């Protein structure tokens, strides 16, 4: 088990370094001149002298490799530069806004699991019943719904018309309800369909027949043999959900004026605030990678075939 985990971590280190290289290079080769952007955002007229000064201040006159290594040396010390707009350390700003995003994404993930697992199980066990058909219709509908549309519909219904819930901002639990539902909907619906499909497949597995042949109690047949196997693909899909949640959080934060890191990043991208863009992308990627690692560990714990290096048997 720990050998498996160790191997995964060993692969991640170089990959993250590569990610930082790619992000760095893309920014340098991409649109715009950082010096020009810097001057624009500082509201300094871009005279040739000012440009030259800005270039040397930002270290843009050095060779690319040296620039990257300089950046890396600073990054290791957790210095990701200063924002062109706010003039504050980038990492500090991002970490200031990050907890709000993590709260939103975390609650949404919890909501996804708490809603999708029981519904998926019930739908599969009571196939073709009213509950099953209703669940399937709702799940299919939810998968097609744009979150930015749903968010506004919910705001209109529950804030504008009914005055039950606040339309924006972060505060107590009431403020979390609409944003979390908006963010969680897509993942919940995907999960319900996935779990239901997986369960239906495993209900007819040979191992289930063999369990019944041995006279195993029905509760154990469903719980131990069907469910534990059926949950495995759902767990592996968690990683994908986390990616969607991190991305979707950006949109939800804009709709509900949630003071998270996504909202900050969108304005940074609009302003071409390169240090923020760079750090934001890296930060979210590191979080994503970390979550995927946790999911992989959970997966290995659930499925012994992975631990023994025998993926895709059966």
């Amino acid at each position: 088990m720990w050998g498996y985990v160790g191997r995964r971590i060993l692969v991640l280190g170089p990959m993250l370094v590569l990610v930082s290289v790619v992000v760095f290079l893309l920014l340098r080769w991409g649109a715009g001149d950082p010096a020009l952007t810097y001057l624009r955002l500082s509201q300094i007229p871009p005279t040739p002298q000012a440009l030259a000064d800005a270039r040397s201040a930002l270290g843009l006159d050095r060779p690319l490799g040296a620039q990257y290594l300089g950046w890396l040396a600073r990054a290791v010390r957790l210095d990701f530069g200063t924002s062109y707009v706010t003039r504050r350390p980038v990492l500090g700003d991002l970490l200031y806004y990050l907890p709000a995003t993590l709260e939103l994404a975390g609650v949404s993930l919890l909501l996804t699991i708490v809603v999708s697992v029981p519904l998926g199980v019930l739908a599969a066990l009571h196939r073709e019943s009213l509950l099953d058909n209703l669940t399937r219709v709702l799940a299919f509908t939810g998968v097609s719904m744009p979150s930015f549309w749903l968010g506004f519909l919910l705001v209109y219904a529950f804030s504008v018309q009914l005055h039950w819930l606040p339309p924006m901002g972060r505060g107590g639990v009431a403020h979390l309800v609409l944003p979390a539902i908006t963010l969680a909907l897509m993942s919940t619906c995907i999960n319900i369909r996935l779990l239901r499909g997986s369960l239906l497949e495993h209900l007819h597995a040979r191992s289930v027949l063999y369990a019944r042949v041995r006279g195993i109690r029905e509760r154990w047949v469903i719980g131990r043999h069907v469910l534990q196997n059926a949950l495995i693909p759902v767990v592996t899909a968690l990683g994908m959900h986390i990616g969607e949640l991190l991305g979707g959080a950006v949109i939800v934060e804009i709709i509900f004026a949630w003071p998270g890191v996504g909202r900050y990043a969108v304005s940074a991208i609009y302003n071409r605030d390169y240090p923020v863009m760079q750090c934001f992308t890296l930060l979210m990627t590191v979080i994503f990678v970390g979550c995927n690692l946790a999911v992989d560990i959970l997966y290995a714990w659930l499925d012994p075939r992975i631990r023994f290096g025998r993926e895709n048997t059966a």
Partner: protein
Amino acid sequence: MTAHPVLRVTELEIAAFGPHGSLPLVRGVSLSVLANRVVGLIGESGCGKSLTCLGILGLLPGNLRRTRGEVFLRGEAVHTLAPDAMRRHCGRSVAMILQNPMSCFDAVHTIGRHFRETVASHGLQTNGGFRDRARSALHEVGFDEPDAILGLYPFQMSGGMLQRVMIALALLLEPPLLIADEPTTDLDAVAQATILDLLASLRKRRGLGVLLVTHDLSVIARLADEVAVMREGAIIERGPVTAVFAAPRESYTASLLRAHHRLDRDYRTHLGAWLGPAAGTESA
């Protein structure tokens, strides 16, 4: 011995139900297995042999159902039982071993777990109690280190080993009847021989009644006392093995035997010189 047969099936019928009506798959099958006797059920793939076995246990899949017939285990009628009541007989009054053992074990659970839940589901003592039963059962099927086996996962073992574990699980609750559905298909020749020898010795030692389902005539010849020939869902011929094989009444049975002998003869022709003079004897 005039005790009840361990298994008695009368006029069993199984049909598949679909949107356009029902299709009979097993028609009027009657069987009887006495203690310490092996009854073979032979036929080609798709003739309904496995369905008959599942029908006896009341474990038919999805849209298949028993439409007629009676099943008696040790004289007790079980065809009228609800699934939960029937469950108590599965493993206790009748045990079944299936083909392709690798797909039957649950890969996320250890072998030990499989033993524990079998014992616990039938209300027998678990804490450590299952270990003794498991150890003796595994020992009986030829494992010298049962404790090591209990800690393994199914995918860490070979097909032959798993088939033996399956037999051990079947013996765990000391059932009087064993249904063996194609126990040697999917196994290599050496594993096949081991399993057949094991079944023969178990039958003698425990006085088991065995319903042996297979498409392989040599397996029948090796183990069975009586044989029933099944074709398209119905039993067309039955009798003692030697009688049926020596003088089949039905042309279908005769053609099965001919096909088997031809294969056997070709085998001996091509390998005759290599096998040596001892190979000249008839294969049965």
